[in-house]
């Protein structure tokens, strides 16, 4: 809502600078988004008459000018000379301020001359680009008057953000009421004149819930033409395009009073009466914008004998609109319910200045005043005479009587607002207040339909008293705060991965429908069961992700395309899947709708070097062990045993370079190199890696506290063993055998060499482990080593059909 202050001042003049008024309104509940000032803050410049001009000897182009502001003469030094005696010019005398907050004072020149201010060009006044000379004004410019005021350029416009409850903020009068309430300045309220004379067109309201009032007025003998300049300037300042005197008058009245108005060419109405009703199946209407609209049985219409002539509250019909030949005007000053206009406006995607106001509720009481103002303006700008009218208002609504317990106001706001003060504040906004000392009965004014229940009055009292007077106290919750165990654990996961070289990404959870196609998933893979959106922002965002992988791989590609070749990203986020018995969604509430399952996932993606090359060390490409290392790191941070690992042959991964992660008999996820076909389809660098696991089961129990074994104070023994097994035996199985053989005194087991070659036999490999045994009860010796090696050998033979390399 744009509020030109000159217009506002017709109703209230708080005597405040625009900035101060803007602050006042903002903290009062009508937020001012901007203060537009056409002259950039120019003030104190007056219209002056030039008396004489004389060239100053010895200077290049300076002139000594005498001007009069009607009361005194002023001597001014000026560089320009495009004016002469008798001309009216803008004079910025000492004390004036030009745009950009340039303060004007007395200026002394080297020659000893003194200039008492300056004469100004249009550009210096912020009203144009012309800087060729001093602005020579109209000969009838009133000498001594404030220049910007005389030009109407002092008009500051406030741009308001009006919340849905404060519909009154969409009218000059409404804003003026708030200014008066907040400052105590006197409010000049115009008075409605009820229609008299020939009642004119009869109106039948078929749906009194949706159309509560219809004040119709008839004016004959108008001359349609452009509005006078002041009206055009005013509408433009308020953000509306001037059209013709009749239409401009309806818009002026709407902006001023808040009640939208529609004007019809009476001659084009098919008599004898108007009906307000809902649309019938198959009806159409060509609206003012030239669009033929198929009407919905939920649309409320204004109809004449031939059918629809307007979409109520939204837009008029083209056939009956005001035109150059209009002689008689029928004004519709009605009241429509917010819901009906809102639904119709959205259905036809027609958001107009009118519908904007109906949506925020217009009180039926404003109709006669808006009608009165509109008629006045039409008669003044288009001529004609008011024939008469009729006000159809079948069921005036009862105004609510609200019980206000003033003690509760205080205990809700936490401010000590006294009973008398509360009463006084409510009366400032025209509430009728009666009742006991501590408990009031409050009838809000018609212009505040948003005030319905007791808490609404708390807000009114708070804002009129001043939100800034609410103290700042911090309550004690009486409980120990904390994260939920899952949230605490998830944070530990994220931080441990970041500390281990992975960078956290957040990708948008929308995906195109074919996103999972490139992953070569089997037909029955649950990740193919995508949940689609009713109104996606684009085709590329038409479903919710069932896996984080495609989004994260897009991020990899984006980095590579931007010449960042070494990528290691992770993301923690939710995927969306149809609910199942094993993984149900959250409860949907009383409606009983089933919500999707939202498993919490952790995904990895990497390509290029995991460790970049340095001057002293070559780089190292990321591989599957970096991903498994990431998994190990998070398990350590969570205080849990890392999941078991087996070779995976699962799309979208390389069949020989991926690992399944197992925990408690369930597969948590898979990490590994992507299948070369997936890499090619997605345009990723060779050997791109990815992985995804369900984080929910890992974090559900929160972080486990670490338990520590007592280190042995006695010397232990350290020795190596090398195990020869067939190449196909997994290293994890070999280690398990070695550990089992070493027994309970094993305190360290580290694989330090993997070797295959003729020395260990064709089809075999050798795995060498560095072991340590400790016994807190006694010192260990060579005999213990010999015994351990024998046990290990036996375990290796039995469990992995291997032997020790001696």
């Amino acid at each position, binding site marked *: 809502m744009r509020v030109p202050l000159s217009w506002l001042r017709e109703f209230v003049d708080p005597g405040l600078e625009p900035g101060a008024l803007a602050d006042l309104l*903002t903290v009062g509940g009508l937020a001012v988004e901007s203060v537009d000032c056409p002259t950039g803050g120019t003030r104190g410049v007056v219209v002056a008459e030039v008396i004489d001009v004389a060239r100053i000897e010895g200077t290049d182009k300076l002139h000594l000018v005498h001007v009069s502001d009607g009361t005194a003469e002023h001597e001014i030094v000026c560089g320009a000379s495009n004016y002469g005696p008798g001309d009216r010019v803008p004079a910025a005398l000492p004390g004036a301020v030009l745009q950009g907050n340039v303060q004007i004072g007395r200026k002394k020149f080297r020659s000893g001359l003194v200039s008492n201010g300056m004469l100004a060009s249009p550009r210096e006044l912020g009203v144009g680009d012309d800087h060729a000379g001093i602005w020579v004004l109209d000969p009838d410019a009133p000498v001594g008057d404030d220049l910007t005021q005389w030009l109407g350029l002092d008009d500051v416009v406030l741009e308001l953000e009006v*919340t849905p409850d*404060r519909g009154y903020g969409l009218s000059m009068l409404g804003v003026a009421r708030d200014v008066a309430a907040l400052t105590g300045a006197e409010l000049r309220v115009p008075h409605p004149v009820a229609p008299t004379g020939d009642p004119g067109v009869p109106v039948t309201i078929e749906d009194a819930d949706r159309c509560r009032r219809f004040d119709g007025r008839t004016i004959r003998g108008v001359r349609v033409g452009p509005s006078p300049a002041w009206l055009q300037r005013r509408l433009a300042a308020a953000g509306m395009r001037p059209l013709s005197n009749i239409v401009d008058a309806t818009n002026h009245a709407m902006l001023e009073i808040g009640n939208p108005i529609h004007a019809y060419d009476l001659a084009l109405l098919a008599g004898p009466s108007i009906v307000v009703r809902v649309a019938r199946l198959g009806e159409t209407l060509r609206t003012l914008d030239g669009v033929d609209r198929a009407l919905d049985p939920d649309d409320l219409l204004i109809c004449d004998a031939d059918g629809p002539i307007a979409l109520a509250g939204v837009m008029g019909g083209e056939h009956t609109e005001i035109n150059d030949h209009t002689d008689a005007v029928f004004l519709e000053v009605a009241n429509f319910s*917010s*819901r009906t206009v809102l639904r119709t406006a959205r259905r036809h995607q027609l958001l107009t200045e009118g519908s904007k106001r109906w949506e925020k509720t217009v009180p039926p009481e404003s109709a006669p005043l808006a009608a009165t103002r509109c008629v006045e303006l039409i008669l003044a700008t288009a001529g004609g005479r008011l024939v008469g009218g009729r006000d159809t208002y079948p069921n005036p609504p009862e105004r609510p009587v609200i019980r206000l317990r003033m003690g509760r106001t205080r205990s*809700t706001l936490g*401010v000590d607002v006294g009973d008398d003060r509360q009463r006084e504040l409510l009366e400032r906004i025209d509430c009728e207040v009666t009742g006991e000392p501590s408990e009031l009965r409050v009838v809000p004014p018609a212009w505040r339909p948003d005030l319905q*229940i007791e*808490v609404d009055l*708390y*807000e009114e009292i*708070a804002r009129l008293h001043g*939100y*800034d007077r*609410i*103290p*700042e*106290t*911090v*309550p*004690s*919750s*009486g*409980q120990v*705060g*904390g994260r939920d165990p899952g949230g605490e654990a998830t944070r530990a996961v994220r*931080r441990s*991965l970041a*500390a*281990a070289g*992975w*960078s*956290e*990404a*957040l990708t*948008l*959870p929308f995906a195109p429908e074919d996103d999972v196609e490139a992953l070569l998933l089997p037909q029955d893979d649950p990740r193919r069961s995508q*949940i689609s*959106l*009713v*109104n996606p*922002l684009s085709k590329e965002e038409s479903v919710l992700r069932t896996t984080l992988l495609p989004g*994260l791989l897009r*991020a990899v590609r*984006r*980095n590579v395309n931007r010449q*960042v070749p070494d*990528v290691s990203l992770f993301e923690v986020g939710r995927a969306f899947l*149809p609910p199942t018995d094993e993984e149900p969604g*959250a409860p*949907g*509430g009383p*409606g009983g*709708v*089933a*919500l*999707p399952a*939202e498993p919490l996932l952790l995904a990895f993606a990497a390509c290029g070097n995991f*460790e970049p090359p*340095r001057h002293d060390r070559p780089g190292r490409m990321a591989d599957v062990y970096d991903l498994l290392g990431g998994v190990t790191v998070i398990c350590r941070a969570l205080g849990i045993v890392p999941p078991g690992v087996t070779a995976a042959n699962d799309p979208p991964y390389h069949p020989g370079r991926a690992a399944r992660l197992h925990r408690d008999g369930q597969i948590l996820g898979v990490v590994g190199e992507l299948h070369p076909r997936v890499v090619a389809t997605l345009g990723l660098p060779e050997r791109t890696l990815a992985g995804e696991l369900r984080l929910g089961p890992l974090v559900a129990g929160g972080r486990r506290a670490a338990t520590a074994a007592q280190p042995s104070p006695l010397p232990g023994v350290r020795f190596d063993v090398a195990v020869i097994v067939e190449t196909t035996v997994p290293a994890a199985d070999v280690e398990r055998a070695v550990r089992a053989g070493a027994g309970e005194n094993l305190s360290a087991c580290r694989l330090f060499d993997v070797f295959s070659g003729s020395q260990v036999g064709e089809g075999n490999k050798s795995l060498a482990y560095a072991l340590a045994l400790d016994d807190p009860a006694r010192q260990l010796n060579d005999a213990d080593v010999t015994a351990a090696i024998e046990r290990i050998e036996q375990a290796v033979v039995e469990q992995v059909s291997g032997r020790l390399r001696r």
Partner: protein
Amino acid sequence: MSAVDLEALQADGLRAYAEAQTLDALDAAKNFYVGRRGALTSVQRSLGSLPENERRDLGARVNAARAALAQAESQRRHVLEEERDRVVLAAEAVDVTLPPRVPKLGSLHPVQETMEAMVDVFVGLGYRVATGPEVESDWFNFEALNYQPDHPARSLMDTIYVRAPGAEADQQGVTDLLLRTHTSPVQARTMLAQPPPVYIVAPGRVYRADIADATHLPAFHQIEGLAIDTDLTMADLRGTLVELVHALLGDVPMRFRPHHFPFTEPSAELDIWLDGRWVELLGCGMVHPNVLRACGYDPEEVQGFAFGIGPERLAMRRHGISDMRLFVESDLRFLSAFPA
């Protein structure tokens, strides 16, 4: 041997030590004078053949000469060792201005970390963390929060609706399932699940039907706060939010002004003064009695406040980020600025 000879021998030895340029030369000189077959050693050996009085006298002088030589040798050895170390260690010098060897460091997303920082403040104030689903039912997202049936926020222009089996669409395509537009549904979920008092914060992702631009994303984050007790006031609300702003942004000027939300009354917004203008930071208010009733609480018995804060906006302020899209582009040149 005469006393003169012994003195000459000592003087020669001292000179030889002083002239030794290497440790090897010093060792050789030492061997020549005091070694097993050294000059002084042979004098000492000859003492046995001397008469008692001469032997005592010469013995004393030999010992003195030996002590003087030993001291000179030790001093010279010290000098030569220092010299040797200096040369050897100088040759071993490395350039300490070469790049340090830093373990590979990742990064944490600034929005997540800003949320964690906000949660930390509320945990410190005694709040617990609650969560809710991102795909919500109309009931939790709107109905329970006192939204009228035709509220504009419920339109397809503002809210992204979800198609799902069992979720029937109306003529406009609106279903009972949607991507939550705020974290406020967690208010209702929490109140339905537990009796008062309630002090929770609910961080999470929220959605709007906005095309991504410098200041909008279709999926962003919010932290909801809810405090319900017997006597909470708007002053408690204001004080709590001031604590948050002080903790995260320091001592910035703030402005508390009226606003409107369907689920709070009175409602407010908190602005902060940044870069020469007021910037809206968050919305809040006293929980509307209709919301309390919908969640099974009695508004005559309990009252409290709620607030919703966008971490993206706060992260932009904290880190000097001017385009919100950077948060979801996953560009490592951007992400790596935020250390683990």
